[in-house]
């Protein structure tokens, strides 16, 4: 039975590839050319592969947080805004005049600030949900728009480049504040390890603690959990804040990562949060699937950029690949559930 989920996902990948071929063909790119660009963009050189890993890092951090939220049955769509606020907080610390003299202290402070900012932004969603009765999807979305507003205000107002402010962003932070590169790679140890540590921590939290068990009870049946004495509001709030905190850390990486732009700009997250949601859906909310799938998403993202540059396509082409992939996976798991049901007869419903 264990090969089944694997075969299922491989099948879904195959179907997704087949589905995207006509789309790419419509744009006048042959499959061979498209494939070549994709692979070259993602793995063509050490540098390019470094970019892939650096792209996977914030994705994985967000995914780790989303695993916690999902297990409590929460759709933390506000993850996008939490990433942005994390980046804003990190940048606020790093642009302080004293930061250059104490790079390590400043970076630790920036990480903590980002962590807190993400958590606070998620706390607003949580309060809106538990006290105001607003579904976390709508609260989260409103805060995503608000986060975009905050960024826009900062880069056009108080933090604008000397002279003329533009949406291209503020002045970058000093090079001494960037994370140190690992030898030849355009990648740092922190970017490699932090997401993995976060993912393991989230998995342990969910699998091995009473807190995780309570969240799962909430996610499976909120009303029953409440009757059994699980403090619903408190646990939902903690789950959302934990999720937001990890997203905030991802925002920090987007500022100080080796290959980042190192400044605050209007597209600072650029959809990483939404992408992480797709990733967790594709991973069927299993932590161990997140790592390979995050790499796959990063490959599609970087490779998609190359593909769009080589052939004059829109840069969203990677997004189409990712979307079709997740949709195919969801359909595949629905199909398998249906076959299993009909195999066992109607009695087992």
């Amino acid at each position, binding site marked *: 039975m264990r090969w089944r989920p694997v075969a299922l996902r491989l099948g879904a990948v195959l179907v997704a590839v087949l589905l995207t071929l006509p*789309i790419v063909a419509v744009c006048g790119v042959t499959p061979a050319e498209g494939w070549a660009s994709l692979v070259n963009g993602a793995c063509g050189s050490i540098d390019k592969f470094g970019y892939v890993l650096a792209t996977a890092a914030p994705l994985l951090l967000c995914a780790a947080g989303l695993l916690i939220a999902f297990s409590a049955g929460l759709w933390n*769509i506000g993850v996008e805004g939490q990433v942005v606020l994390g980046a804003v907080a990190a940048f606020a610390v790093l642009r302080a005049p004293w930061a250059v003299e104490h790079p390590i202290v400043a970076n630790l402070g920036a990480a903590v600030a980002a962590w807190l900012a993400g958590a606070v932004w998620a706390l607003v969603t949580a309060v809106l949900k538990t006290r105001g*009765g607003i579904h976390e999807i709508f609260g989260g979305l*409103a805060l995503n*728009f*608000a986060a975009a507003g905050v960024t*826009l205000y900062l880069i*056009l*107002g108080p933090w604008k480049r000397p002279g003329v402010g533009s949406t291209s962003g503020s002045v970058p932070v000093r090079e001494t504040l960037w994370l140190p590169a690992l030898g030849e790679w355009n990648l740092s140890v922190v970017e490699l390890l932090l997401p993995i540590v976060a993912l393991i921590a989230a998995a342990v939290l969910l699998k091995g603690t009473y807190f995780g068990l309570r969240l799962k009870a909430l996610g499976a049946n909120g009303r029953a959990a409440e009757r059994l004495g699980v403090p619903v509001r408190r646990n939902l709030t903690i789950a959302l804040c934990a999720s937001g905190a990890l997203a905030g850390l991802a925002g920090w990486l987007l500022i100080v990562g080796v290959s980042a732009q190192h400044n605050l700009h209007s597209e600072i997250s650029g959809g990483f949060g939404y992408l992480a949601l797709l990733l967790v859906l594709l991973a069927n909310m299993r932590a161990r699937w997140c790592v390979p799938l995050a790499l796959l998403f990063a490959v599609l993202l970087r490779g998609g950029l190359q593909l769009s540059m080589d052939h004059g396509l829109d840069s*969203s082409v990677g997004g189409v690949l990712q979307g079709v992939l997740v949709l195919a996976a969801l359909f595949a798991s629905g199909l398998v559930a249906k076959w299993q049901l009909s195999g066992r007869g109607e009695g087992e419903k």
Partner: protein
Amino acid sequence: VDTAVLLSMIVATAPPVIFAVLGETICERAGVINLGLDGMLVLSAMTSFAAAATTGSLAVGFLAGAAVGILVALVLAIGTLTLRQSQFAIGFVLTLLCRDLAYVLGRSFEHQAGPQVAPLSLPGLASVPVLGPIFFQQNMLVYAALACVFATWFYLYHTQAGLRLCGLGENPQAAFARGVNVVRQRYLYVCLGGALTGLGGAAFSLFVRPGWCRPDGITGTGWIALAIVIFGGWHPVRAALGACLFVALQILAVRWQGALPSGIPSQLLTCIPFPLMIFALLLVTLTRSEGTQRVLARLPTGLRNVIERFLNILKATPPAALGRDFKRD
């Protein structure tokens, strides 16, 4: 600004949002949340402009928009009704996928000229003193949107089929026991909702902001439409009013740009309608919260009755089975 001019501007700009909220209201009344609304709008806006620009025919453009809406709705219906996946999951994937598809496929149509809906005053009605200029010196699109609001309201509240539609979302088990084919009916209404949303997308790219470019100006509207449906208490007329309110906020945001103090960048104002609309939801949900009831209980009776009557207008309860998978047993 002249109020009448402002009102007629609102009515002229509202059709995309009105079509979208009507489509979503019908879909949710049948018990299915279409979280893919935003992507559906963007993709249908792109497709209908592309179709109209290629063929030179507005009718083809609108048909293409509706067809894309139905197609995306079918994907949602198959995934959630037949394959029983989470409505949130499928809808969310669809919203991102459709948006990206629109950007990729629409690239060659950016900044092109194409046909657009021409104004058409309704003879007779257009010369009615106050209402004429606001409602009847518009175009076919506006009249169609207003007619759809009325038709949806009539269908939901004054026909037997409309009653059955509400049954699908309130208590599908009971509907099933009464001999209704729940899954097939839900398919039908999800697709109908998709068609209306597709028309909304077409209304945007063929009239409100003719053409296709990036940023397209409609991304995000679908999310607001989802919020408006809640704000409107799943009632087509109230939802349409909510749509007008949102459009009014957008128009005012642009108008007031000049009036800002110098420290505040003007781009900020265009972000504001979105959070504002969603916090308007707070008003609706607060009417149901315990805290409000507790505060109310302490007030003198006369005042309490007045406030309660006001709150009851805002009150909205979602269809009981909204978002749930239908099982026969």
